């Protein structure tokens, strides 16, 4: 059984790969303490696999960000226009 890798890094000497992959989001979010960030970056500098992993996470985020919202169908748009006109017709409650 592997050690509990979610535990804070405090007191540990080095980050190992299995911990590093769990720290990626906190790292990208700027949520690591300065000491943990230094340890994480030191690990990256020595580990091409985790550097690759980080690049993949960044690519994943970029690709997810490229997903576009589905357009409204004309029928749905008509429904909203109707909704709006009903609201305006009802007198907007003093706004």
């Amino acid at each position, binding site marked *: 059984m592997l050690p509990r890798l979610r535990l804070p890094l405090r007191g540990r000497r080095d980050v*190992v*790969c299995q911990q590093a992959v769990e720290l990626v*989001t906190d790292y990208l*979010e700027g949520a690591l303490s300065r000491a943990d960030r230094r340890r994480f970056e030191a690990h990256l500098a020595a*580990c091409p696999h985790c550097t*690759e992993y980080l690049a993949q996470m960044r690519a994943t*985020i970029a690709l*997810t960000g490229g997903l576009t919202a589905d357009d409204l169908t004309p029928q749905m748009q008509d429904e*909203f226009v109707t909704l709006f006109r009903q609201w305006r017709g009802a007198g907007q409650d003093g706004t």
Partner: protein
Amino acid sequence: MDQETDAELLGRLRTGDERAFVTLVRRHHAVMLRLAAGYVPSMAVAEEVVQDTWLGVLRGIGGFEGRSSVRTWLFRILVNRARTAGVRERRSVAIGDWVPAVDQSRFDATGHWAAPPEHWVEEAENRIDAAKLADRLRSAVGELPVRQREVVLLRDVEGLSSEEVCGVLEISEGNQRVLLHRARSRLRQVLETDFGRS
């Protein structure tokens, strides 16, 4: 016209401007629908929730005080309504058990990579059938547990800040990061399955 800010559109909506309303709806509808779909049993119900939300927006438009962004305000109304309409949320309020970002079998006993990630980043970014990749990602987002899906939709698809996401979903920064981490890790796995040897 689509370049106007949400706040400008809301201002015009207050004066009864129909085009401002339609622009706002078009801008936010898809993500609202996907958010709502996480809480209710069918797309038909999700559509009702979204429509009900917009009606609520129109009725309560005087209540927007500008303390949050229009988007945060809008999505919070939606999530509250969707939670009321749905039953699934009650089972998924907790952020859930820990799931490793990468399957434990990929590491050796000392926690170092035994099966390291292969190189596919450029291949994914330059993929010719980008539409197919987008479909794959979109369905992977759809299959995430609802809390993870909410966070990744708002953060990575819609581009809200972490602060805005916490405001919409009423969760802590820490929980937001945990959910985001799980969602992104899962989506990376999906891409790896497509591109790498996995």
